[in-house]
């Protein structure tokens, strides 16, 4: 045999072997003793006291039933409830009580007005569950069905009614994108760490604040300890541990303003953002059209889901934070701020607009074909003269514009505590090099100066920018929750304003811009005269964002342009001009004109805000009533 690497291990020394053998004998004795102990115990349990345990197994069984906790309420900034809970009645079938479903399924399908195959599918899907766990056959049945089933319960063995708390949307689809919805936890979510304590069948927030604040809203499940017999029938309740309700979420939203915004949008695609300029708190966050939250209660049907997916108005998209649009002329605020602060222009210097500017071998047109004539800084902003800003932009260069835009919070996420926020885009020379591996063309700077080209912003970003410009230059992080309170009234958490720093730009330039913005709404020739209110001085800027190159729609009358090619309409604004309180940004997708399409929406919200604030209009100052029952169900 070849020398083995392990041969240095010697055979055992006989003396030591003898000693180890002795110990192994001891071990053997111990092990046999343990085996004897176990066998004796088995004899004691199964034979000596066996009858006793057999009887216990016949009669004394304990089952633990979980009771869902009422979820925390969602309230508005004044404490008015927006979303609460109501009991929901589900039809469940217990396999254990009636092992064969065929007997009852026919009758039940008729009562529930469902196809038999639908019910059978649900039973089949639940075969993996423990047998005593009831299978839900139909969620949220109405009173009439409930009464019919209760009356016939003797002929429907195994069929029971389960009562679970469910969401009640007092204001219908109010702020639907922001509040989000609930649905049964998915198998994928069950494997996530944050849902470690959940079980299949539990309701969980799927979107918006319902998801983000799930931990606070969910509450603690209760437990019902039941004694059941050998067939699983309940004998008596042994102990009840009441569920503990979830915590209440106080939003910064105002029911009246949110409703005013939603009504003014009237189902058109777009977004409205209303923000307190000195805190960053959002008073309204409306993405239109809204989602029908009732459809999501108990799981949305595939047809309804597909309809939402294919809707040209794109209701699934939260346009306030996920919609990215060229800001159009509203971006001239940025260009103006950069130009004055950098000393590129003085407010009094004039420039002649002849309707277009030639640059390179291209002609860059002004929106006003005849031209604005001679304009100074104020007139240029008030009448939104493109040619003036082309020339300013050319002298600034794209990187300067980008620097100011970034400092105003554009081109990056605002940090609002909502999921899937988009960052928009602010182009620069380095950006283009990196993104397209191409050199920046000077002509592109002209487009950027008037908010076209590669510039993309979300409505929330523009609103925050406007707030920062008018509040003295402080950028706040947008927030939609004020505080969280426990069911006993204790405050668990409050959300203070989050200061994100000062914006670039001199106080002088900010003052000049504010003056011009007031002119946009209040002076003759201003692009947003429709917004003007009698008692309050509003400032703002309109914008029209091209969806396609002008050439596609050149020469067509506005009405004959197909919907999807029409321009987006912007209006971003603040009030009151003397001491700004709120900023409102409105986007109407394909609304064509900032002034006429988006302006009136902002006007309606301002009107409501100041009516409520001054409380002079008795009827309007009354809080908006919750929807009547039938109106909501619809």
């Amino acid at each position: 045999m070849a020398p083995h690497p392990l041969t240095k291990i010697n055979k055992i020394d006989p003396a030591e072997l003898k000693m180890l053998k002795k110990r192994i004998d001891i071990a053997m004795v111990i092990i046999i003793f343990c085996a004897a102990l176990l066998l004796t115990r088995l004899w004691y349990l199964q034979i000596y006291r066996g009858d006793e345990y057999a009887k216990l197994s016949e009669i004394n069984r304990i089952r633990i039933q979980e009771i869902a906790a009422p979820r925390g309420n969602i309230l508005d900034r004044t404490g008015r409830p927006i979303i609460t809970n109501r009991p929901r009645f589900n039809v469940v079938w217990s396999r254990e009580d009636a092992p064969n479903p065929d007997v009852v399924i026919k009758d039940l399908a008729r009562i529930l007005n469902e196809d038999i195959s639908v019910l059978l599918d649900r039973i089949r899907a639940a075969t993996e569950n423990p047998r005593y766990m009831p299978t839900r056959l139909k969620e949220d049945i109405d009173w009439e069905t409930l009464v019919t089933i209760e009356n016939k319960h003797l002929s429907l063995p195994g069929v029971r009614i389960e009562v679970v708390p469910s969401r009640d949307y007092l204001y219908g689809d109010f702020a639907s994108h922001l509040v989000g919805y609930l649905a049964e936890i998915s198998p994928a979510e069950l494997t996530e760490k944050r849902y470690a304590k959940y079980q299949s069948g539990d309701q969980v927030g799927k979107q918006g604040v319902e998801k983000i604040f799930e931990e606070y809203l969910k509450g603690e499940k209760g437990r019902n300890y039941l004694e059941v017999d050998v067939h699983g029938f309940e004998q008596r309740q042994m102990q009840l541990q009441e569920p503990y309700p979830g915590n209440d979420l106080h939003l910064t939203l105002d029911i009246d303003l949110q409703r005013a915004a939603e009504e003014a949008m009237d189902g058109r695609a777009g977004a409205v953002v209303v923000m307190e300029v000195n805190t960053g708190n959002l008073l309204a966050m409306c993405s239109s059209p809204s989602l029908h939250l009732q459809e999501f209660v108990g799981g949305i049907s595939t047809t309804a889901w597909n309809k939402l997916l294919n809707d040209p108005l794109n209701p699934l998209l939260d346009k306030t934070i996920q919609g990215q649009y060229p800001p159009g002329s509203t971006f001239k605020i940025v260009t103006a701020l950069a130009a004055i602060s950098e000393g590129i222009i003085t407010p009094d210097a004039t420039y002649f607009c002849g309707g277009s500017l030639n640059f390179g071998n291209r002609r860059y047109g002004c929106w006003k074909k005849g031209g604005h004539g001679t304009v100074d800084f104020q007139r240029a902003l008030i009448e939104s003269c493109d040619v003036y800003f082309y020339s300013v932009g050319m002298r600034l260069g794209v990187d300067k514009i980008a620097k100011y835009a970034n400092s105003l919070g554009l081109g990056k996420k605002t940090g609002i505590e909502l999921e899937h926020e988009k960052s928009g885009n602010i182009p620069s020379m380095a950006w283009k090099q990196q993104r397209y591996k191409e050199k920046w063309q000077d002509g592109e700077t002209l487009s950027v100066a008037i908010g076209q080209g590669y510039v993309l912003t979300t409505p929330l970003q523009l609103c925050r920018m406007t707030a920062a410009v008018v509040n003295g230059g402080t950028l706040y992080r947008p927030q939609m929750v004020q505080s969280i309170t426990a069911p006993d009234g204790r405050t668990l958490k409050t959300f203070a304003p989050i200061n994100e720093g000062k914006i670039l730009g001199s106080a002088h330039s900010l003052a000049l811009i504010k003056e011009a913005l007031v002119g946009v709404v209040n002076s003759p020739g201003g692009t947003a005269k429709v917004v003007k209110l009698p008692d309050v001085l509003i400032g703002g800027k309109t914008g029209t964002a091209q969806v396609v190159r002008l050439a596609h729609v050149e020469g067509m009358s506005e009405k004959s342009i197909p919907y999807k090619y029409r321009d987006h309409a912007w209006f971003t604004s603040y009030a009151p001009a003397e001491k700004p309180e709120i900023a409102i940004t409105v986007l109407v997708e394909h609304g064509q004109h900032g002034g006429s399409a988006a302006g009136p929406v902002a006007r309606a919200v301002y009107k409501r805000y100041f009516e409520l604030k001054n409380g002079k209009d008795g009827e309007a100052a009354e809080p908006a009533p919750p929807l009547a029952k039938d109106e909501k169900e619809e």
Partner: protein
Amino acid sequence: MLRFDRRLLLNFDWVLFVAVLVVALLGLTNIYSATHLYTNMGTPLYLKVLTYYLFGAAIILLIVSIDYRVLLTLNYPLYISMIILLLFALAFGKTIGGAQRWINLGFFRLQPSEPAKLILVITLASYYYRKETGKGFSLLDLAVPALLTGVPFLLIAKQPDLGTGLLLGFIFVSMTLFVKLRWSTLATLLCVGLSAIPIAWKFFLKPYQRQRVATFLNPEHDPLGTGYHIIQSKIAVGSGLIFGKGYMKGTQGQLDFLPERHTDFAFSVWAEEWGFLGSVVLVVCYFFMILWGLNIAISARDKFGVLLAFGVVSLIFWQAFINLAMVMGLLPVVGVPLPLVSYGGSSLLTNLAGLGLLMNIRMRRYMGTS
């Protein structure tokens, strides 16, 4: 390279092989009864167990074909990988039932505390083999093996998995008593150990663990909370009577009154369905397998083989005894599986690997030193 000796085949340990096969078949039969209502990602659990067994058979084949003495060179690399895995489980592990025990490998969820038991046996056997005993170990001599046990013990207790942690302690104590101890060392350790109990009770145990011990002492005090496991398990075992309720007809197990019935309480399902007779058969087969392991230890060709075989036997014995005593209400609920019977891939593969080591030692008992 290793040349395969024909004598190895002739000396293959058919007795242990058959004993393992019998216990495994009984265990598999029982798992089917306990889990046929369940699937895991679409695969019925008993099919998963079957694949674990096939995998385990491959591991046994691999282990018996390599001389166990290579472990003397592999013991520290193995030990270090075990520590890394335990740290990894603590840092990134999956939480199930409040404890971070699992590492997800995609196709398999590894519970590193299971192989850790076997690796500790190998490590201690190598250490004690190398260390000259002379007049017996002094307290100082024990510092290194105590440290080798203490590190994985703390990492596992931190998960928290006190049952597995304690098992490491039992293995350490068994193997240390097996090699020679000085009487003075033994006496000191006894005193320290006894005085440590109240301190551990107060500072080391988590409230739920204290609760379990308290419940064990008086389960009827809290029939719905922590006493539930013990009471339901005793009812299951006791109601089996002499002949049992019949295969797949145990009400306690099938109607979900018995918790953890395919893992820690698998034996309760068996006892309920097969009664006293079936239980005696399983326990006798089981202890025969363990005693045969001691026989292997006696007949090993070198001291390392003796120590290793004894360590594996103590590993399987302590798990079995603690588990059986627990489901019969003789010990508090600590979460130790019954090797080859409880469901759990990591546990099954570890124990099969241990049994493979026993076969390995047995096969090479006549190998010369040349």
